[in-house]
C-alpha cells in the first residue's frame, strides 16, 4: 500500500492507505476527524467540504493520495482553543443551523468565499453556495451568518 503524507490542521500525518481511499474516509476513519461529514457521497451536497492548500474541495471526490504533500484544513482546525473562528461564531449568533449536518461544509465553503471575495453581497453568497445543500434551514439564516462572518473576518 502507498504511504500518504500531508499536513492536517497544522500537524503532519503519514499513513499507509489503499489508493482508492477517499480523502474524507481518511480524515474520518484514519484520523478520527469526524467533523467532516458525508451527505450524498455523489459530489452534490458539500457536507464534506474541506480546504486543500487553502481552497475548498469536496473531500468525497478526492483520493487521499491526491492530497499527498498538501495542507488540509477541516472544521476541527478552525477554533483557537475555546474561541470559535469568526465564521463559526457568526453561524451560532445568527442561528445558521438547525440539525447541523451541513454546517461544517457550509463554514469551510464560506471561509473560502471570503478569501476570494472579502466583501460579498447576498447574491454572491447565494451563488457561492451552489455546491452546499441544507435540508433544514431554507438557507436564509445561513446567508445571514455568512454575511456577518465575512464582516467579522475583516474586523
Amino acid at each position: 500500500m502507498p504511504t500518504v503524507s500531508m499536513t492536517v490542521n497544522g500537524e503532519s500525518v503519514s499513513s499507509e492507505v489503499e489508493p482508492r481511499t477517499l480523502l474524507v474516509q481518511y480524515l474520518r476513519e484514519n484520523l478520527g476527524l469526524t467533523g467532516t461529514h458525508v451527505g450524498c457521497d455523489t459530489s452534490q451536497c458539500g457536507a464534506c467540504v474541506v480546504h486543500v492548500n487553502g481552497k475548498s474541495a469536496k473531500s468525497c471526490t478526492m483520493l487521499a493520495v491526491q492530497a499527498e504533500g498538501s495542507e488540509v484544513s477541516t472544521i476541527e482546525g478552525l477554533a483557537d482553543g475555546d474561541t470559535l473562528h469568526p465564521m463559526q461564531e457568526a453561524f451560532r449568533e445568527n442561528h445558521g443551523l438547525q440539525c447541523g449536518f451541513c454546517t461544517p461544509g457550509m463554514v469551510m465553503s464560506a471561509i473560502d468565499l471570503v478569501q476570494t471575495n472579502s466583501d460579498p453581497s447576498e447574491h454572491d453568497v447565494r451563488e457561492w453556495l451552489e455546491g452546499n445543500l441544507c435540508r433544514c434551514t431554507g438557507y436564509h439564516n445561513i446567508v445571514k451568518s455568512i454575511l456577518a462572518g465575512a464582516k467579522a473576518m475583516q474586523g
Partner: protein
Amino acid sequence: MYDFKYQLANSQDDAVSAQSSAEDGSFLAGGMTLIPTLKQRLAQPSDLVDLSGISDLIGVSAEGDSVTIGSMTTHAEVASSEIVSSKIPALAALAGNIGDPQVRNRGTIGGSIANNDPAADYPAACVALNATIITNNRKIPADNFFTGLFETALEDGELITAVTFPIPDKAAYAKFPNPASRYAIVGVMVAHTGGETRAAVTGASDSGVFRSSEIENALGDNLDSSAAKAVSISADGLNNDIHASSEYRAHLVSIMASRAATAAG
C-alpha cells in the same frame, strides 16, 4: 470503488509511458467526473496516472491572436485569469459558471473536453471559437474532436496538453442550467471571428455539441439576436428526458442563441 494502482506522473512523457505500460490505465485530472464514475463502479481501470504534478500542463498564455490554456488549468483559474478575462471574457464567464466553486477548484479544461459530456459547457466554447486541441502528438481542430456521446477523436493513451482559442471579435455564452446539477439543459455559444459567425449548441443533443447552421445564418455578421430568436429548430434527435422535452430544448436553442447574441453586443 474497485481497487487500482495509483501513480503521480512528473512529466508528460512519464504520464504517457505510465498509461501505455498499464494494463488499462486512465489519466486522472481533477477527478470531478472520474472519481464519481469509479465510485459507481462504471469503470475499472487497473491504474490511475495523476496529471496534477506536471507543471507545464497548467497555465494560460496569449500569443498573437490566440489564447492557449494548459489542459490541467482548473475552471477557477480560467475564470479568474486576467488574460482570459481581457481577451475572451465569454470564456472566463463560461468557466466561472461551471458547476459550483468546489468543482471549479478542481475540475480542469482537459478533463472536461476529454470526457465530452453532452451537457458540458467547454465543448460549446471549443467549437464556437474554432479552437484547436493540442495533444502529445498532434493538433486536432475542435470540429473534428467531439465525435459523439462521451466520444472524442482521442486515441487510447493520447494526452491533451493544451487548447488554443483564436481571440474572437465578439462572443458570448448563454446557458439554461439544470437547477440541480448546473449542467446545461441547453447552452449556446455564439462567436464572430475574422468574418465568420459560429453558433455551437450543448446540452440539446444526446450526441453532444453541434453547430447550428440555421442559427448561424440568422445571426449573420452582426449577430442579429431577434433573427436568431425567430428560428424554429426541429426537435428531431434532441434529448427528451425528465429535465426537458425535446420540443422545449428545441425552443431553448433559439432563445439561448438570441440571449448570447445580445450579450455579445
